[in-house]
């Protein structure tokens, strides 16, 4: 290292100015802001995870609805705990959600009018869930329905399907 080079390096160190024009203060400022930014993003991610529960103590989504013989043909039975209608028609069984597709109120089966009505905003559906009248945007969904090995009805509310009829 020559004398002139040496003196220019010491000069740069003294003034806090490196060869490429970035001062030590700028460098440390950017380093600190970068580190704080990464830590901030990390804490947002960790907090988001913290607020998403991993275990929920909610009613099970699969349930047994008893023997098919419990339901007469041409009947709509409301299971209050599950908020599901078990509908039995001559062609077979289907499970229709009782939760209105508008804003989540629980609907009611009106046997006299032969329709499902929502008390909150007046949506109306047929017994198979098709929409008669809004404001509900969609028909009531059907859930997967099957028979267990011992011959009971089994409904899976996680499986939203367009239409399924279980022949018994």
């Amino acid at each position: 290292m020559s004398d002139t080079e040496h003196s220019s390096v010491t000069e740069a160190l003294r003034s806090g100015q490196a060869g490429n024009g970035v001062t030590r203060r700028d460098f440390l400022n950017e380093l600190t802001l970068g580190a704080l930014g990464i830590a901030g993003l990390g804490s947002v991610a960790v907090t988001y995870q913290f607020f998403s529960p991993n275990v929920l103590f909610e009613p099970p989504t699969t349930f047994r609805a008893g023997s098919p013989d419990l339901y007469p043909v041409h009947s709509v039975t409301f299971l209050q705990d599950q908020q599901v209608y078990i509908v039995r028609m001559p062609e077979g069984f289907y499970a229709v959600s009782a939760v209105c597709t508008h804003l989540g109120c629980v609907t009611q089966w009106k046997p006299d009018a032969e329709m499902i009505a929502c008390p909150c905003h007046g949506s109306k559906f047929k017994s198979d869930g098709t929409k008669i009248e809004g404001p509900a945007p969609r028909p009531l969904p059907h859930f997967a329905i099957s028979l267990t090995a011992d011959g009971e009805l089994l409904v899976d509310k996680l499986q939203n399907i367009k239409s399924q009829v279980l022949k018994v």
Partner: protein
Amino acid sequence: MATTLHSALQRLRETRVWKSIFRRGPANTNRTRSLAVFGNLFLHWLPVKVREKSLRVRASYYLGSISFILFIVLFVTGILLMFYYHPATPHAYRDMKDLRFVVSNGVFLRNLHRLAAHLMVFAVFWHMFHVFYRGGYKPPHEFNWVVGVVLLLVTLFLSYTGYLLPWDQLAFWAVTVGTNIISAMPVVGEKIRFLLLGGNIVGENALLRFYVLHVVILPLVAFLLIGVHFWRVQKDGGLTIKPKDDDGKE
């Protein structure tokens, strides 16, 4: 009688304790009166001089102050109600019933909290309309207008989160409907609903989350923003008075 009281106060002001707290003599000149305002944490952001016009009822109808007083009423009664309320099922509904029928003066405090909440929403809206129609959002008040709008939203969120806490049918369905409206938001709607409820249904997690929002997070945000709001009123030059009011004509 009056002179006895006066001289007693005079003696109190001369004690070492009084002087150590207030560090000033009697506020008997404009200068010492200003110092009294400057030297007090709770008053220091107030102007030391106020135009008489801005204190007239017609200048503001005191709507901001009324909103703030209602907020204080809600703060005090809310803290008292917390002594009897468990944010859990099935306690929540029973505690609300207990407050109404069993706890001494419980029904008074609960109704005070409820009515003050309704009135605060009303007062805050009226305050906003009044400021809007008087042109109070115009420069240099734009930033404070925005703070005010956020305070309106905080007021509404406080109302909404408090609505669930009695855990009755009205509360349950209101929150079911409200959170379903949130889930109609594109892309993030379902996720926000899940985070807000702490699950897929309005259950215990939802009650606890709404409770924490209602008694800790939202009041803290409100307090902070109210502080900024009041401070900016003074820094932006006090209440907006129409120019014709300045001329003394109405």
